């Protein structure tokens, strides 16, 4: 049977991209569409619980609303710095790209720290889940000790939804760290892990949640060892899509969960 051969010096012609852009970006869009259904399901579950429960708690005092507003400002600002990082990347300004990415990470970390503080406050007041470590002795008198028992849907949907979002922000910071610093980010990530693990008491869910960072460090090490590369503007743009999505989801969580459950 004769074999077909292609001459080597003829420039190849390819079909144009169906969506007018490169595959990596289309892949990220597909992932984000599927992830939006995950968050959609969680938001619908929260709303379903709220509609079907007559005495839905409204636990967020003015202090919590201010805290959540600052968190929102952090995320919106991080989106601006992210888009400036993409702009620096397409202009091939490596230094500015790295600085804007680091600024985005700083805003993301600010968001996670404030959110963690909010969680710790609610847990200390008695709003908790059975899976969380038990606080020594004290929570029975907290403001929300009865809420956790009479309306368990609230704690389940609140921690489920905001916890999933916090996980996305944390992984987003790791993703941007890898794009900005490559292998140099691994020791930084390990320091973050140790700080989060040793800096939180064993009664905090973050004490165990911190191991996500260790897992991320292992996965990133494997990826960076197997496929070391210099990330170009397309990589920064794709990372930016993920980051903006995390911001986008918060635009629905903030009003639906916090503002609609405010007790002013």
């Amino acid at each position, binding site marked *: 049977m004769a074999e077909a051969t292609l001459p080597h010096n003829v420039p*190849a012609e*390819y079909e144009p*991209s*169906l*969506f*007018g*852009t*490169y*595959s*990596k*970006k289309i892949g990220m*869009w597909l992932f984000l*569409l599927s992830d*939006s*259904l995950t968050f*959609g*399901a969680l938001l*619908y579950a929260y*709303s*379903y*619980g709220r*509609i*079907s429960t*007559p005495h839905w708690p409204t636990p967020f005092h003015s202090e919590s*609303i201010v805290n959540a*507003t600052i968190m*929102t*400002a952090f995320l*919106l*600002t991080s*989106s*601006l710095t*992210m*888009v*400036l990082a*993409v*702009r620096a*990347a*397409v*202009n091939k300004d490596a230094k500015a790209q790295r600085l804007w990415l680091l600024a985005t990470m700083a805003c993301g970390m600010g968001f996670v720290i404030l959110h963690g503080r909010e969680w710790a406050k609610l847990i200390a007041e008695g709003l908790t889940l059975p899976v969380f470590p038990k606080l020594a002795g004290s929570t029975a008198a907290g403001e929300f000790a009865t809420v956790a028992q009479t309306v368990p849907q609230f704690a389940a949907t609140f921690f489920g939804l905001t916890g999933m979002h916090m996980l996305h922000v944390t992984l987003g910071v790791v993703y941007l760290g890898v794009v900005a610093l490559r292998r140099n980010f691994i020791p930084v990530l390990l320091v973050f892990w140790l700080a989060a693990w040793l800096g939180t008491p064993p009664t905090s869910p973050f004490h165990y949640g911190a191991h996500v960072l260790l897992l991320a460090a292992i996965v990133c090490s494997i990826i960076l060892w197997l496929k070391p590369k210099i990330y*170009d*503007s*397309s990589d920064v*743009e794709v990372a*930016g*899509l993920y980051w*903006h*999505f995390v*911001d*986008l989801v918060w*635009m*629905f969580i*903030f*009003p*639906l969960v916090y*503002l*609609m459950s*405010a007790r*002013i």
Partner: protein
Amino acid sequence: MEAFQQAIADQVAEQQRHHGKAQFFWVWSALLVMTAIEVYLTYQNMQPLRMLTILMGLSLVKAALIIGFFMHMKYEISRMKWLTMCALVACLSLMLFFFPDALRILSLGVR
């Protein structure tokens, strides 16, 4: 990345090079202002349904700004825009079918 993918990526980067920096600051400012309006409304003790409608309306506008400008969807070709956004809206809308059930539970008097 393969050569033809790199060529497309370079083309996309070239298009993005012409996007003005100022528009990103405008979008960011608009998002912050809308957030401030949302928080202001929270302190007005409005009727919950009315407040929910306004908040969700503002959230949709904010989402459109983020997708359109920050995620560059505004500059994608029509096929990309319509296929992704229609698929997303259709799938999320399907979940609305759960809500009548939530109302039914309420009217049945489950406590």
